[in-house]
């Protein structure tokens, strides 16, 4: 009898609700560490916001966004919250997921139970997005307290930022699947995420950039996230919603698909 069927790692995801207990597991660990991790997650972005927003803001004054003058602090806040979503999701889907996958062998233990790898990857992806949402929510709370924006459309920005978290956790899981150690992630942060922060219109308007760079920038996931979120902070509806959303969806779907394939490859012993 033969059973020779080496199924392609690129086959469609086989997902079920079995991701939920894996997500719950991460939630239970996090509940024990939530407060210290919260401080770590929001302290740095807030320091940037306050230092740059008020410090630079005093120098810069107002910035024009599509013809509307905007206080620099609002310009920065609406961009940097996307950056925070990106960083929170990336950190969780890299360092923390790698700890569970490789160091603690938590995934191996789970796969001895009736949960398949695809559901574990989905759980980790959603978990990292949840962490991003949590961070974003805390920062939004502080921004409201500081009176940076009272736009009712922040209620729309909130789920959009969850989407941004999902996009970046999918991309990060690709690098998680490829990692041999924690050092590997330094490359991802310094060579990919940090340059993107400067090319996505968070700190200064994209109009400042040369045409070629702007063209590249317009395809970066973070740029598209900022384009969706910033108008909502200004109590306006974003333009080209479909285009920006499609770019993010493409990164999300493509990222998850590649991440899943590479993770399957990693675990295919």
């Amino acid at each position, binding site marked *: *009898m033969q*059973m020779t069927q080496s*199924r392609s790692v690129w086959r469609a995801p086989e997902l079920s609700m079995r991701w939920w*207990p894996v997500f719950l*597991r991460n939630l239970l660990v996090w509940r024990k560490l939530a407060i210290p991790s919260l401080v770590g997650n929001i302290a740095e972005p807030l320091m940037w916001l306050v230092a740059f927003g008020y410090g630079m803001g005093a120098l810069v004054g107002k910035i024009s966004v599509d013809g509307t003058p905007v206080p620099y602090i609002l310009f920065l806040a609406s961009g940097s919250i996307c950056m925070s979503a990106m960083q929170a999701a990336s950190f969780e889907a890299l360092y923390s997921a790698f700890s569970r996958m490789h160091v603690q062998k938590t995934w191996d*233990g789970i796969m001895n*139970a*009736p949960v398949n790898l695809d559901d574990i990857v989905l759980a980790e992806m959603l978990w990292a997005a949840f962490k991003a949402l949590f961070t974003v929510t805390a920062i939004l709370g502080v921004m409201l307290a500081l009176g940076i924006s009272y736009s009712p459309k922040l209620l729309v920005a909130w789920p959009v930022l969850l989407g941004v978290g999902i996009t970046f956790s999918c991309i990060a899981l690709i690098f998680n699947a490829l990692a041999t150690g924690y050092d590997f992630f330094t490359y991802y942060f310094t060579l990919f995420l940090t340059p993107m922060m400067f090319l996505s219109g968070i700190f200064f308007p994209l109009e400042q950039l040369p045409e070629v760079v702007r063209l590249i920038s317009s395809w970066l996931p973070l740029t598209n996230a900022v384009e969706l979120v910033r108008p909502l902070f200004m109590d306006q509806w974003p333009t080209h919603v479909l285009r920006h959303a499609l770019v993010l969806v493409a990164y999300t779907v493509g990222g998850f698909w590649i991440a899943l394939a590479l993770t399957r490859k990693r675990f*295919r012993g």
Partner: protein
Amino acid sequence: MSESILSVQHLVKRYGDATVVSDMSFEIAPGECLGVIGPNGAGKTTTIRMCLGLTVPDEGLVTAFGLHMPRDALAIKAQLGVVSQFDTLDPDFSCAENLLVYGRYFGLRDAQIRERIPALLQFGSLTHKADAKPGELSGGMKRRLSLARALVNNPRLLLLDEPTTGLDPQARHLMWERLQMLLSEGKSILLTTHFMDEAERLCNRLLVVDHGKKIAEGSPRDLIAQHLEPDVVEVFGAGALGLMDSPLKALAVRVEVSGETVFFYTLDAKPLMQALVAYPQLRTLHRPANLEDLFLKLTGRQIREDA
């Protein structure tokens, strides 16, 4: 299909040019403990991984409870308990939380699991450690927590990959006692081990594997009777190796040398023991042949002399 609880037929696994498992077949009957013994790298863990659907075999068939792996992997795993070679306990959770969280992976309701936790902790002799984290446990306690965790779904078959490696004798004996309890409850066990005393004590039947192949199969007693002479005389001390050239060799069916010790395998040790009286400087140990002798004979790790 026979009434076996797990059936492995003609499994083959290759990595590049290396064949790590070659034409492996065995079955486990309900209530049976099957031991797989073999040196490191013999293909034991790969075989277990194929039974779990974690490694896809190049050839062959795995069925369990009448279901096919890997097609029915989830349905099979729902009835399996697994203790892997290295603990995968959650370091951030207490013992009780480890059991709760693991039970959820089987789709069990929290109330159901919580009801089982006291008995599981008691089974692992961990009741007093319910709130301790794995980092605070001894090696033996961790292994027993892994075993208790593998029982959370009340499995019919347990796959145990070297469950006592690295444990001290007390912890090992406690583990054996627990495994015997499970067997007496009617559970089936597939066990890999390096320890011959463990295999002899727990297993109804043994597979000896080496280089990915099954090289012998049978009950521990039958295997010894089949492959070995009943008596072994070990001789060591200054000049022991000189016996290889002495007429004493004729008193044994087989003579082997390992390090500084000469092993005489014989049907009757009496004449040999009497002859050895003439060598007072040598120390002798006369004992029945055991699984370790079998293992060494079959896997060929000793320096052999042509008999």
